[in-house]
């Protein structure tokens, strides 16, 4: 009995120290649904790290998402969180922010959700310089529904609905955000965890529309169909082909199949945010 008691004590002492992010996660919702090798965990971790660094009061932070793998982030964060309909996170977040401007409202979304079905909302929120931070985890494919073509899928890449290779042009999200009027635009991959966390911190503290694109592996679907079979292989690709160019012209930052990935902070403007403009 004594031995058992001591063992229990040891176990408790091991279990006690919490991961610094634990308090930001709904423990009763874990484990999450994401696949092994997926970049969403890293993206979420960097977001929570940025949240700590930003010193924002978590009680005054709301996370809004749409539908898809990335949309599930809202279900795991221990903050006010809203899992809305497909593509509609931004207008929901807009209403939330305007009804209570004291909130920091963050949209956590995927590329299909944000830019295909939600594309119109994205460009208009950027145009307004709406006071939102929008995070887009771009894995170039629809993950939740099983690997279909996305508006970000590079030309020639294979998906379940482009089995012979995509014969369509993709969106360059950073360029789209910049051209639409975003005050802050950065792109990193899930390999660049510290830079990503720094960019997310800046984005959280930036008035107006801040946009961070996170290039993220989807080994289960995008990788398997495009000769990058593991998350590790995709990370290796990011390591080999990423080029850091702060201030790069987003027009020059297209992402081609097996091409280079220009990353960095592309836009950081001082322009009146939507709420600042309302003051007249």
């Amino acid at each position, binding site marked *: 009995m004594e031995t058992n008691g001591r063992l229990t004590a040891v176990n408790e002492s091991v279990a006690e120290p919490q991961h610094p992010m634990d308090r930001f996660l709904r423990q009763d919702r874990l484990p999450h649904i994401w696949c092994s090798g997926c970049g969403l965990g890293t993206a979420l971790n960097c977001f929570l790290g940025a949240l700590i660094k930003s010193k924002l009061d978590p009680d005054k932070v709301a996370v809004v998402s749409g539908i898809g793998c990335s949309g599930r982030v809202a279900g795991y964060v*221990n903050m006010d*969180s809203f899992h809305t*309909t497909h593509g*509609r996170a931004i*207008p*929901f977040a*807009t209403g939330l922010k*305007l*009804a209570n401007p004291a909130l920091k409202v963050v949209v956590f979304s995927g590329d299909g959700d944000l830019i295909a079905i939600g594309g119109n909302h994205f460009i*208009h929120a950027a145009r307004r310089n709406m006071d939102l931070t929008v995070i887009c985890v771009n894995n170039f494919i629809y993950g939740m529904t099983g690997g279909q073509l996305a508006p970000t899928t590079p030309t020639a890449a294979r998906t379940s609905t482009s089995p012979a290779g995509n014969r369509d042009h993709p969106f360059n999200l950073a360029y789209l955000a910049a051209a639409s009027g975003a005050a802050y635009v950065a792109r990193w991959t899930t390999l660049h965890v510290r830079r990503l966390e720094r960019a997310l911190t800046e984005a959280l503290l930036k008035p107006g529309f801040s946009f961070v694109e996170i290039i993220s592996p989807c080994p289960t679907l995008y990788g398997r169909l495009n000769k990058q079979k593991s998350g590790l292989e995709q990370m290796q690709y990011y390591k080999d082909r990423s080029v850091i160019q702060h201030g790069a012209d987003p027009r020059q930052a297209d992402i081609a199949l097996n091409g280079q990935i220009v990353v960095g902070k592309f836009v950081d403007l001082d322009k009146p945010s939507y709420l600042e403009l309302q003051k007249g």
Partner: protein
Amino acid sequence: MNGDEACAEAALSAGSRFFAGYPITPATEIAERMAERMPDVGGTYIQMEDELASMNAVLGAAWGGAKAMTATSGPGFSLMMENLGLGLITETPCVVVDVQRGGPSTGLPTLVGQGDMMQARWGSHGPYEIIALCPTSPQEMFDLTIEAFNLSEKYRTPVLLMADESVGHMAERVVIPPVESLELYPRRKPTVPPDQYRPFEGDDAGVPAMACAGEGYHLHVTGLTHDERGYPVTTDPAVQERLVHRLIEKIRANRADIIRVESRWLDDAEVIVVAYGISARVALLPIEMARAQGIQVGWLKLVTVWPFPEDLIRQLARRVQAFVVPEINYGQIALEVERCAAGRARTILVPHAGGDIHDPRVVLEAIRQAVEGQGDGVTG
């Protein structure tokens, strides 16, 4: 003022401080009035990129603590169906105004229709109950907008104000009572600490208290089927049953509190004209003409169209020969009347494709036929 303007004024009187919309005839005057008036009261008016966005912004604003409204007409109402469903499953109080015009599709932008009544009931996918009110005058645009906000807060659900172009654009005297004299139903907030609060657990009436973002409750709100905590449960039909059953019952079990009708001459009626919106008002003239000719005809105006006053129609069907239903569509509410009459009384539709109100003589003729035992059925 016109009905649209009265609607906007009522929203402000009800304490609404958020309006999101998109221009569309014949509802645009509501947005214009809101754009002009919201700054006076420290509220937010925002013109969104489309009606999908407007509906979502309204839901977001409600969770941000505001009483929120949007207004549209048929084409925009169609776009709102997606997120009306989100509002229903997340139990988000808000008011959606549809100033109906002729349809389908772009139809008759500047002319009247009442063709969205079944869309109001069933337009979003899945099983649900909805509350919808139909004003017949600018004054009722005011009064029923107040009531729509009250019902939305009381039952924590979106409420539809199903107006029509005639009522929206009609200008009449509108009495706006002092705000202090209005009975306004406040949002019911949780009284327990965050760790005990269940945002989707109904009270005795089946309605949960509502915390909003930023109040420390760490809400999770999802359009997925969810448990009482708001957590998604998508593989258990029992949770689906529990949620959907409560969402439906919180309306059905409270029908007596929700449903309002107005009536005249029912006591001696052999035939009853059942109508709503502008058609209820139009029906008064042919009824008076018929009564002057000695025809015993009554008038039943549906203030609440959804939930449908089933019991009342069932009771009346036992003692009248027929119902006459003039509506500016080809048979929507008439189908409900026919269903509830269940063969005990005939149901005679007086259809109108839209673009104008009924000619009173056509309604009078339908009343005459009804008394003479002619005419039956909604679909001919």
